Protein backbone atom coordinates (compact mmCIF):
# COMPACT_ATOMS: atom_id res chain seq x y z
CA UNK A 1 0.00 0.00 0.00
CA UNK A 2 1.13 3.51 -0.67
CA UNK A 3 1.59 6.39 1.71
CA UNK A 4 1.59 10.19 1.38
CA UNK A 5 4.33 12.51 2.58
CA UNK A 6 4.71 16.29 2.42
CA UNK A 7 7.48 18.84 1.80
CA UNK A 8 8.11 22.28 3.25
CA UNK A 9 7.42 23.63 -0.25
CA UNK A 10 3.81 22.45 0.12
CA UNK A 11 4.09 19.52 -2.25
CA UNK A 12 2.66 16.09 -1.56
CA UNK A 13 4.23 12.82 -2.70
CA UNK A 14 2.23 9.64 -2.92
CA UNK A 15 4.64 6.73 -2.81
CA UNK A 16 3.35 3.47 -4.30
CA UNK A 17 5.42 0.52 -5.43
CA UNK A 18 8.08 2.03 -7.63
CA UNK A 19 6.23 5.20 -8.50
CA UNK A 20 5.98 8.59 -6.78
CA UNK A 21 3.10 10.91 -7.71
CA UNK A 22 3.71 14.60 -6.97
CA UNK A 23 1.30 17.48 -6.62
CA UNK A 24 0.67 20.59 -4.54
CA UNK A 25 -1.36 20.77 -1.36
CA UNK A 26 -4.67 22.48 -0.75
CA UNK A 27 -2.75 25.12 1.21
CA UNK A 28 -0.48 25.77 -1.79
CA UNK A 29 -3.35 26.12 -4.24
CA UNK A 30 -4.98 28.69 -1.97
CA UNK A 31 -1.76 30.68 -1.94
CA UNK A 32 -1.36 30.41 -5.71
CA UNK A 33 -4.83 31.61 -6.58
CA UNK A 34 -6.48 30.90 -9.94
CA UNK A 35 -4.12 28.70 -11.98
CA UNK A 36 -4.19 29.48 -15.70
CA UNK A 37 -1.30 27.48 -17.12
CA UNK A 38 1.06 24.67 -16.20
CA UNK A 39 4.30 23.87 -17.96
CA UNK A 40 4.94 20.14 -17.56
CA UNK A 41 8.25 18.30 -17.97
CA UNK A 42 8.94 15.83 -20.77
CA UNK A 43 8.19 12.20 -20.00
CA UNK A 44 11.52 10.40 -19.73
CA UNK A 45 13.48 13.40 -18.49
CA UNK A 46 15.83 12.73 -15.61
CA UNK A 47 15.49 15.03 -12.64
CA UNK A 48 17.73 15.50 -9.65
CA UNK A 49 16.40 16.55 -6.25
CA UNK A 50 16.13 20.33 -6.36
CA UNK A 51 15.46 20.50 -10.11
CA UNK A 52 12.55 22.53 -11.39
CA UNK A 53 10.09 20.06 -12.87
CA UNK A 54 7.09 22.22 -13.69
CA UNK A 55 5.95 25.82 -13.66
CA UNK A 56 2.55 26.84 -12.39
CA UNK A 57 1.23 30.19 -13.60
CA UNK A 58 -1.62 31.74 -11.70
CA UNK A 59 -3.27 35.07 -12.39
CA UNK A 60 -1.01 36.44 -9.66
CA UNK A 61 2.40 34.95 -10.25
CA UNK A 62 4.51 32.06 -11.47
CA UNK A 63 5.57 29.27 -9.10
CA UNK A 64 7.90 26.33 -9.64
CA UNK A 65 7.51 22.71 -8.73
CA UNK A 66 10.86 21.51 -7.49
CA UNK A 67 11.24 17.75 -7.15
CA UNK A 68 12.51 16.67 -3.74
CA UNK A 69 13.99 13.36 -4.96
CA UNK A 70 16.00 12.05 -7.92
CA UNK A 71 13.97 10.24 -10.57
CA UNK A 72 12.79 9.85 -14.13
CA UNK A 73 9.50 11.40 -15.24
CA UNK A 74 7.17 8.44 -15.85
CA UNK A 75 3.98 10.35 -16.60
CA UNK A 76 2.60 13.88 -16.53
CA UNK A 77 -1.00 14.92 -15.93
CA UNK A 78 -1.98 16.03 -19.42
CA UNK A 79 -5.48 16.92 -18.22
CA UNK A 80 -3.89 20.03 -16.69
CA UNK A 81 -3.03 21.38 -20.15
CA UNK A 82 -6.70 22.00 -20.97
CA UNK A 83 -7.94 22.27 -17.42
CA UNK A 84 -5.27 23.99 -15.35
CA UNK A 85 -7.95 24.88 -12.79
CA UNK A 86 -7.99 21.21 -11.70
CA UNK A 87 -5.05 22.32 -9.65
CA UNK A 88 -7.38 24.64 -7.73
CA UNK A 89 -10.40 22.38 -7.53
CA UNK A 90 -8.66 19.07 -6.77
CA UNK A 91 -4.98 19.67 -6.00
CA UNK A 92 -4.52 16.47 -4.03
CA UNK A 93 -6.39 14.14 -6.39
CA UNK A 94 -7.21 14.84 -10.06
CA UNK A 95 -4.87 17.83 -10.05
CA UNK A 96 -1.71 15.75 -9.57
CA UNK A 97 1.21 17.06 -11.63
CA UNK A 98 3.72 14.35 -12.42
CA UNK A 99 4.84 10.83 -11.62
CA UNK A 100 8.44 9.90 -11.08
CA UNK A 101 10.18 6.57 -11.12
CA UNK A 102 12.53 7.28 -8.22
CA UNK A 103 16.17 6.28 -8.24
CA UNK A 104 15.70 5.23 -4.60
CA UNK A 105 12.65 5.19 -2.37
CA UNK A 106 12.19 8.55 -0.56
CA UNK A 107 13.76 8.75 2.88
CA UNK A 108 10.64 9.21 4.98
CA UNK A 109 12.53 11.03 7.72
CA UNK A 110 13.22 13.87 5.23
CA UNK A 111 9.50 14.58 4.85
CA UNK A 112 6.43 15.27 6.96
CA UNK A 113 3.42 13.07 7.45
CA UNK A 114 -0.09 14.53 7.25
CA UNK A 115 -0.22 15.49 10.90
CA UNK A 116 3.22 17.09 10.91
CA UNK A 117 2.31 18.96 7.76
CA UNK A 118 -0.88 20.33 9.36
CA UNK A 119 1.21 21.67 12.24
CA UNK A 120 3.69 23.10 9.76
CA UNK A 121 1.07 25.14 7.88
CA UNK A 122 -0.56 26.29 11.11
CA UNK A 123 2.80 27.59 12.24
CA UNK A 124 3.49 29.33 8.94
CA UNK A 125 0.13 31.14 8.93
Amino acid at each position, binding site marked *: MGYVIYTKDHEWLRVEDNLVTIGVTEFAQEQL*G*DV*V*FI*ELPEVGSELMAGDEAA*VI*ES*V*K*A*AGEIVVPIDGVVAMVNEALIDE*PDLLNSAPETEGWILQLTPIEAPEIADFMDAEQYQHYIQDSE
Partner: protein
Amino acid sequence: MSESLGNKKTQFYDYHLAAGGKMVPFAGYLMPVQYPLGIMQEHLHTRDHAGLFDVSHMGQVVVRGPDAAIALETLMPLDLAALAINQQSYATFTSADGGILDDLIITRWAEDTFFLVVNAGCKEQDIAHLRAHLPHCEVNYLEHMSLIALQGLRAVEIMAELAPQTASLVFMQGCHMQIDDIKCYVTRSGYTGEDGFEISVSDDHALALADVLLAYDYCQWIGLGARDSLRLEAGLCLYGHDMDEHTSPVESAISWSISKSRRSGGEKSGGFLGADTILGHLANGATKKRVGFLVEGRAPVREGAEIADQQGNLVGVITSGGFGPTLQVPVAMGYVPTELSAVGTQLFAIVRGKPRSITVSKMPLVPQRYYRG
Protein backbone atom coordinates in the same frame (compact mmCIF):
# COMPACT_ATOMS: atom_id res chain seq x y z
CA MET B 1 -4.94 56.44 9.14
CA SER B 2 -3.06 54.43 11.73
CA GLU B 3 0.36 52.84 11.51
CA SER B 4 1.19 49.17 11.95
CA LEU B 5 4.63 47.69 11.33
CA GLY B 6 5.41 50.65 9.10
CA ASN B 7 2.39 50.10 6.89
CA LYS B 8 -0.67 52.28 7.22
CA LYS B 9 -4.22 51.00 7.27
CA THR B 10 -7.17 52.62 5.58
CA GLN B 11 -10.49 53.11 7.37
CA PHE B 12 -11.73 49.92 5.72
CA TYR B 13 -9.00 47.62 7.08
CA ASP B 14 -11.28 45.70 9.44
CA TYR B 15 -13.92 45.43 6.72
CA HIS B 16 -11.36 43.87 4.39
CA LEU B 17 -10.37 41.36 7.05
CA ALA B 18 -14.01 40.56 7.79
CA ALA B 19 -14.58 39.99 4.07
CA GLY B 20 -11.64 37.55 4.00
CA GLY B 21 -9.27 39.94 2.27
CA LYS B 22 -5.67 38.84 1.91
CA MET B 23 -3.75 41.91 3.04
CA VAL B 24 -0.42 42.82 1.48
CA PRO B 25 1.85 45.86 1.80
CA PHE B 26 1.34 48.19 -1.15
CA ALA B 27 2.80 51.70 -1.42
CA GLY B 28 3.07 51.94 2.36
CA TYR B 29 -0.41 50.59 3.08
CA LEU B 30 -1.83 47.21 3.98
CA MET B 31 -4.25 46.64 1.14
CA PRO B 32 -6.40 43.70 0.06
CA VAL B 33 -4.88 41.92 -2.95
CA GLN B 34 -7.83 39.55 -3.17
CA TYR B 35 -10.80 38.13 -1.30
CA PRO B 36 -11.97 34.51 -1.12
CA LEU B 37 -13.67 34.84 -4.52
CA GLY B 38 -10.22 35.10 -6.13
CA ILE B 39 -8.83 37.48 -8.73
CA MET B 40 -10.45 35.79 -11.72
CA GLN B 41 -13.99 35.87 -10.29
CA GLU B 42 -13.54 39.32 -8.74
CA HIS B 43 -12.52 40.64 -12.15
CA LEU B 44 -15.54 39.07 -13.87
CA HIS B 45 -17.85 40.17 -11.07
CA THR B 46 -16.76 43.77 -11.57
CA ARG B 47 -17.35 43.72 -15.32
CA ASP B 48 -20.78 42.05 -15.01
CA HIS B 49 -22.09 43.38 -11.69
CA ALA B 50 -20.57 45.92 -9.30
CA GLY B 51 -17.21 45.96 -7.55
CA LEU B 52 -16.23 48.13 -4.61
CA PHE B 53 -12.56 49.12 -4.41
CA ASP B 54 -10.82 50.75 -1.49
CA VAL B 55 -8.50 53.28 -3.10
CA SER B 56 -8.01 55.37 0.03
CA HIS B 57 -4.27 54.88 -0.23
CA MET B 58 -4.26 57.28 -3.17
CA GLY B 59 -3.47 60.91 -2.47
CA GLN B 60 -6.30 63.42 -2.47
CA VAL B 61 -4.98 66.95 -2.76
CA VAL B 62 -6.68 70.32 -3.15
CA VAL B 63 -4.86 73.19 -4.85
CA ARG B 64 -6.36 76.64 -4.36
CA GLY B 65 -5.30 80.12 -5.40
CA PRO B 66 -6.48 83.00 -7.57
CA ASP B 67 -4.26 81.81 -10.44
CA ALA B 68 -4.39 78.10 -9.67
CA ALA B 69 -5.32 77.12 -13.24
CA ILE B 70 -2.45 79.04 -14.78
CA ALA B 71 -0.03 77.87 -12.10
CA LEU B 72 -0.99 74.20 -12.50
CA GLU B 73 -0.65 74.52 -16.27
CA THR B 74 3.12 74.90 -15.72
CA LEU B 75 3.22 71.34 -14.34
CA MET B 76 0.95 69.47 -16.76
CA PRO B 77 0.18 69.76 -20.49
CA LEU B 78 -3.50 70.51 -19.95
CA ASP B 79 -5.77 73.44 -20.70
CA LEU B 80 -7.03 73.93 -17.16
CA ALA B 81 -8.43 77.38 -17.84
CA ALA B 82 -10.86 75.64 -20.21
CA LEU B 83 -11.83 72.96 -17.67
CA ALA B 84 -15.38 73.62 -16.48
CA ILE B 85 -16.33 73.39 -12.82
CA ASN B 86 -17.07 69.75 -11.82
CA GLN B 87 -15.31 68.55 -14.97
CA GLN B 88 -12.25 66.33 -14.64
CA SER B 89 -9.37 65.26 -16.81
CA TYR B 90 -6.61 62.69 -16.84
CA ALA B 91 -3.21 64.37 -16.61
CA THR B 92 0.48 63.82 -16.03
CA PHE B 93 2.97 65.75 -13.95
CA THR B 94 5.77 66.09 -16.47
CA SER B 95 9.43 66.39 -15.55
CA ALA B 96 11.95 68.91 -16.83
CA ASP B 97 13.39 66.09 -18.97
CA GLY B 98 10.01 65.38 -20.56
CA GLY B 99 9.35 62.25 -18.49
CA ILE B 100 6.39 61.58 -16.22
CA LEU B 101 6.59 62.17 -12.47
CA ASP B 102 3.09 60.79 -11.86
CA ASP B 103 -0.29 60.48 -13.50
CA LEU B 104 -3.40 61.87 -11.89
CA ILE B 105 -7.01 62.88 -12.25
CA ILE B 106 -7.65 66.58 -11.81
CA THR B 107 -11.12 68.00 -11.18
CA ARG B 108 -12.10 71.63 -11.08
CA TRP B 109 -14.04 72.24 -7.89
CA ALA B 110 -14.31 76.02 -8.28
CA GLU B 111 -12.88 78.84 -10.34
CA ASP B 112 -9.81 78.92 -8.08
CA THR B 113 -9.86 75.35 -6.71
CA PHE B 114 -8.71 72.02 -8.14
CA PHE B 115 -9.01 68.53 -6.64
CA LEU B 116 -6.25 66.10 -7.56
CA VAL B 117 -6.11 62.35 -7.07
CA VAL B 118 -2.55 61.05 -7.35
CA ASN B 119 -0.85 57.68 -6.94
CA ALA B 120 -0.20 56.41 -3.41
CA GLY B 121 3.47 55.76 -4.08
CA CYS B 122 4.03 59.28 -5.44
CA LYS B 123 1.85 61.42 -3.22
CA GLU B 124 4.54 62.81 -0.93
CA GLN B 125 6.78 63.73 -3.82
CA ASP B 126 3.78 65.18 -5.74
CA ILE B 127 2.80 67.39 -2.83
CA ALA B 128 6.39 68.61 -2.46
CA HIS B 129 6.49 69.24 -6.22
CA LEU B 130 3.26 71.27 -6.09
CA ARG B 131 4.45 73.31 -3.10
CA ALA B 132 7.83 73.99 -4.68
CA HIS B 133 6.41 75.14 -8.01
CA LEU B 134 3.21 76.85 -6.88
CA PRO B 135 4.30 79.18 -4.06
CA HIS B 136 1.19 81.32 -4.48
CA CYS B 137 -1.25 78.44 -4.15
CA GLU B 138 -2.47 76.66 -1.07
CA VAL B 139 -1.72 72.93 -1.40
CA ASN B 140 -3.84 70.95 1.01
CA TYR B 141 -3.43 67.19 1.46
CA LEU B 142 -6.79 65.69 2.41
CA GLU B 143 -5.29 63.28 4.87
CA HIS B 144 -8.58 62.45 6.54
CA MET B 145 -10.55 61.61 3.44
CA SER B 146 -11.19 58.10 2.17
CA LEU B 147 -11.72 57.19 -1.48
CA ILE B 148 -13.72 54.32 -2.87
CA ALA B 149 -14.46 53.27 -6.41
CA LEU B 150 -17.72 51.61 -7.36
CA GLN B 151 -17.18 50.04 -10.76
CA GLY B 152 -18.99 47.84 -13.23
CA LEU B 153 -22.09 47.40 -15.32
CA ARG B 154 -24.49 47.74 -12.38
CA ALA B 155 -22.68 50.48 -10.46
CA VAL B 156 -25.10 52.99 -11.92
CA GLU B 157 -28.13 51.04 -10.64
CA ILE B 158 -26.88 51.51 -7.11
CA MET B 159 -26.07 55.18 -7.55
CA ALA B 160 -29.36 55.88 -9.33
CA GLU B 161 -31.17 54.64 -6.27
CA LEU B 162 -28.98 56.28 -3.63
CA ALA B 163 -28.23 59.59 -5.34
CA PRO B 164 -30.33 59.94 -8.51
CA GLN B 165 -28.49 63.04 -9.77
CA THR B 166 -25.24 61.12 -10.03
CA ALA B 167 -26.74 58.74 -12.58
CA SER B 168 -26.91 61.57 -15.09
CA LEU B 169 -23.25 62.49 -14.71
CA VAL B 170 -21.24 61.59 -17.78
CA PHE B 171 -17.74 60.11 -17.78
CA MET B 172 -15.27 62.53 -16.13
CA GLN B 173 -17.93 64.70 -14.49
CA GLY B 174 -18.44 65.13 -10.77
CA CYS B 175 -20.70 66.68 -8.18
CA HIS B 176 -21.02 67.21 -4.44
CA MET B 177 -23.67 64.88 -3.13
CA GLN B 178 -25.26 63.45 -0.03
CA ILE B 179 -25.71 59.71 0.09
CA ASP B 180 -27.83 58.71 3.07
CA ASP B 181 -26.98 62.06 4.67
CA ILE B 182 -23.27 61.41 4.14
CA LYS B 183 -21.50 64.26 2.38
CA CYS B 184 -19.29 63.13 -0.46
CA TYR B 185 -17.85 64.12 -3.80
CA VAL B 186 -18.86 61.75 -6.57
CA THR B 187 -17.28 61.50 -9.99
CA ARG B 188 -18.19 59.29 -12.94
CA SER B 189 -14.76 57.75 -13.32
CA GLY B 190 -12.53 54.87 -12.40
CA TYR B 191 -9.68 52.75 -13.67
CA THR B 192 -11.29 49.50 -14.75
CA GLY B 193 -12.53 50.42 -18.22
CA GLU B 194 -16.09 50.00 -16.94
CA ASP B 195 -18.71 52.59 -16.17
CA GLY B 196 -18.45 53.56 -12.54
CA PHE B 197 -17.96 56.14 -9.85
CA GLU B 198 -15.30 57.29 -7.45
CA ILE B 199 -16.50 58.66 -4.15
CA SER B 200 -14.46 60.83 -1.83
CA VAL B 201 -15.80 60.78 1.72
CA SER B 202 -14.48 61.81 5.11
CA ASP B 203 -12.83 59.04 7.16
CA ASP B 204 -15.53 59.47 9.81
CA HIS B 205 -18.29 58.45 7.42
CA ALA B 206 -16.37 56.04 5.21
CA LEU B 207 -17.65 52.85 6.86
CA ALA B 208 -21.24 54.04 6.87
CA LEU B 209 -20.99 54.74 3.15
CA ALA B 210 -19.49 51.30 2.49
CA ASP B 211 -22.36 49.74 4.46
CA VAL B 212 -24.90 51.48 2.25
CA LEU B 213 -23.17 50.29 -0.94
CA LEU B 214 -22.50 46.75 0.28
CA ALA B 215 -26.16 46.36 1.21
CA TYR B 216 -26.68 45.58 -2.48
CA ASP B 217 -26.04 41.88 -2.82
CA TYR B 218 -24.46 42.30 -6.25
CA CYS B 219 -21.88 44.77 -4.87
CA GLN B 220 -18.72 43.13 -3.53
CA TRP B 221 -15.30 44.19 -2.32
CA ILE B 222 -12.70 43.71 -5.05
CA GLY B 223 -8.95 43.60 -4.42
CA LEU B 224 -5.88 45.10 -6.03
CA GLY B 225 -5.22 41.93 -8.04
CA ALA B 226 -8.41 42.30 -10.05
CA ARG B 227 -7.93 46.07 -10.23
CA ASP B 228 -4.66 45.34 -12.02
CA SER B 229 -6.11 42.83 -14.50
CA LEU B 230 -9.09 45.11 -15.20
CA ARG B 231 -6.95 48.14 -15.97
CA LEU B 232 -4.57 46.04 -18.04
CA GLU B 233 -7.37 44.73 -20.27
CA ALA B 234 -8.67 48.31 -20.50
CA GLY B 235 -5.26 49.47 -21.79
CA LEU B 236 -4.67 51.81 -18.85
CA CYS B 237 -1.14 52.57 -17.66
CA LEU B 238 0.15 51.78 -14.20
CA TYR B 239 2.59 54.44 -13.05
CA GLY B 240 6.06 53.13 -12.22
CA HIS B 241 5.52 50.19 -14.55
CA ASP B 242 4.06 51.27 -17.89
CA MET B 243 5.38 54.81 -17.60
CA ASP B 244 7.80 56.69 -15.40
CA GLU B 245 10.30 59.52 -15.38
CA HIS B 246 12.09 57.90 -18.34
CA THR B 247 9.08 57.84 -20.68
CA SER B 248 7.39 60.88 -22.17
CA PRO B 249 3.60 61.04 -22.55
CA VAL B 250 4.12 60.45 -26.29
CA GLU B 251 6.26 57.36 -25.72
CA SER B 252 3.73 56.20 -23.12
CA ALA B 253 1.01 56.41 -25.81
CA ILE B 254 -1.04 58.91 -23.84
CA SER B 255 -0.60 61.83 -26.25
CA TRP B 256 -4.39 62.20 -26.11
CA SER B 257 -3.89 63.59 -22.60
CA ILE B 258 -2.05 66.63 -24.00
CA SER B 259 -4.53 69.45 -24.67
CA LYS B 260 -4.61 70.87 -28.23
CA SER B 261 -3.96 74.40 -26.97
CA ARG B 262 -0.73 73.27 -25.26
CA ARG B 263 0.69 71.69 -28.41
CA SER B 264 2.85 73.41 -31.03
CA GLY B 265 0.73 76.03 -32.80
CA GLY B 266 -1.84 76.12 -29.98
CA GLU B 267 -2.66 79.43 -28.29
CA LYS B 268 -0.95 78.29 -25.06
CA SER B 269 1.73 76.14 -26.65
CA GLY B 270 4.39 74.78 -24.27
CA GLY B 271 4.96 76.43 -20.92
CA PHE B 272 5.00 73.17 -18.95
CA LEU B 273 7.97 71.21 -17.62
CA GLY B 274 9.68 69.22 -20.34
CA ALA B 275 7.66 70.92 -23.11
CA ASP B 276 10.57 71.01 -25.58
CA THR B 277 11.11 67.26 -25.38
CA ILE B 278 7.43 66.35 -25.31
CA LEU B 279 6.37 68.68 -28.14
CA GLY B 280 9.43 67.43 -30.06
CA HIS B 281 8.18 63.86 -29.65
CA LEU B 282 4.72 64.95 -30.83
CA ALA B 283 6.14 66.68 -33.91
CA ASN B 284 8.88 64.26 -34.91
CA GLY B 285 7.78 61.03 -33.28
CA ALA B 286 9.56 59.20 -30.49
CA THR B 287 11.88 56.25 -30.95
CA LYS B 288 9.93 53.94 -28.63
CA LYS B 289 6.29 53.47 -27.84
CA ARG B 290 4.06 51.64 -25.36
CA VAL B 291 1.84 49.05 -27.03
CA GLY B 292 -0.54 46.31 -25.98
CA PHE B 293 0.04 42.63 -26.71
CA LEU B 294 -2.03 39.51 -27.02
CA VAL B 295 0.01 36.44 -26.14
CA GLU B 296 -0.19 33.08 -27.88
CA GLY B 297 -1.02 30.13 -25.65
CA ARG B 298 -2.10 30.39 -22.05
CA ALA B 299 1.07 31.15 -20.12
CA PRO B 300 1.17 34.77 -18.95
CA VAL B 301 4.07 36.98 -19.99
CA ARG B 302 4.99 39.16 -17.05
CA GLU B 303 6.66 42.45 -16.28
CA GLY B 304 10.37 42.41 -17.01
CA ALA B 305 10.24 39.85 -19.84
CA GLU B 306 12.39 40.95 -22.76
CA ILE B 307 10.90 41.40 -26.22
CA ALA B 308 12.70 40.08 -29.30
CA ASP B 309 12.06 40.72 -33.00
CA GLN B 310 11.82 38.06 -35.74
CA GLN B 311 15.63 37.99 -36.01
CA GLY B 312 16.03 37.43 -32.29
CA ASN B 313 17.34 40.92 -31.49
CA LEU B 314 16.23 42.19 -28.09
CA VAL B 315 14.14 45.25 -28.88
CA GLY B 316 12.06 46.01 -25.80
CA VAL B 317 10.59 44.95 -22.52
CA ILE B 318 7.21 43.97 -21.07
CA THR B 319 6.07 46.48 -18.43
CA SER B 320 2.79 44.84 -17.34
CA GLY B 321 1.48 41.40 -18.03
CA GLY B 322 -0.87 38.80 -16.73
CA PHE B 323 -3.85 36.68 -17.57
CA GLY B 324 -6.89 38.55 -18.84
CA PRO B 325 -9.92 37.00 -17.12
CA THR B 326 -12.41 38.57 -19.54
CA LEU B 327 -10.45 37.60 -22.65
CA GLN B 328 -9.30 34.27 -21.16
CA VAL B 329 -5.87 34.76 -22.73
CA PRO B 330 -2.68 36.34 -21.42
CA VAL B 331 -2.41 40.09 -22.02
CA ALA B 332 0.53 42.44 -21.70
CA MET B 333 1.91 45.91 -22.37
CA GLY B 334 5.42 46.93 -23.15
CA TYR B 335 7.77 49.22 -25.00
CA VAL B 336 9.02 48.56 -28.52
CA PRO B 337 10.82 50.68 -31.15
CA THR B 338 8.22 52.82 -32.95
CA GLU B 339 8.87 50.98 -36.24
CA LEU B 340 7.72 47.75 -34.54
CA SER B 341 4.66 49.29 -32.89
CA ALA B 342 2.05 48.80 -35.64
CA VAL B 343 -0.97 46.69 -34.71
CA GLY B 344 -0.43 43.14 -35.95
CA THR B 345 3.37 43.18 -35.61
CA GLN B 346 4.56 39.73 -34.54
CA LEU B 347 7.22 39.68 -31.86
CA PHE B 348 8.44 37.37 -29.13
CA ALA B 349 8.59 37.67 -25.38
CA ILE B 350 11.35 35.70 -23.70
CA VAL B 351 9.84 33.67 -20.86
CA ARG B 352 12.14 31.39 -18.88
CA GLY B 353 14.61 31.47 -21.78
CA LYS B 354 12.08 30.52 -24.45
CA PRO B 355 10.56 32.84 -27.07
CA ARG B 356 6.78 33.13 -26.90
CA SER B 357 4.75 34.62 -29.74
CA ILE B 358 3.14 37.95 -28.99
CA THR B 359 1.20 40.25 -31.32
CA VAL B 360 0.93 44.02 -31.04
CA SER B 361 -2.78 44.59 -30.47
CA LYS B 362 -5.10 47.54 -30.47
CA MET B 363 -5.71 48.94 -27.00
CA PRO B 364 -7.95 48.74 -25.10
CA LEU B 365 -7.93 44.97 -25.41
CA VAL B 366 -11.41 44.91 -23.85
CA PRO B 367 -13.68 47.76 -25.05
CA GLN B 368 -14.16 50.50 -22.48
CA ARG B 369 -17.76 51.06 -21.44
CA TYR B 370 -17.68 54.58 -20.06
CA TYR B 371 -20.98 56.43 -19.89
CA ARG B 372 -20.83 59.42 -22.21
CA GLY B 373 -24.50 60.34 -22.16
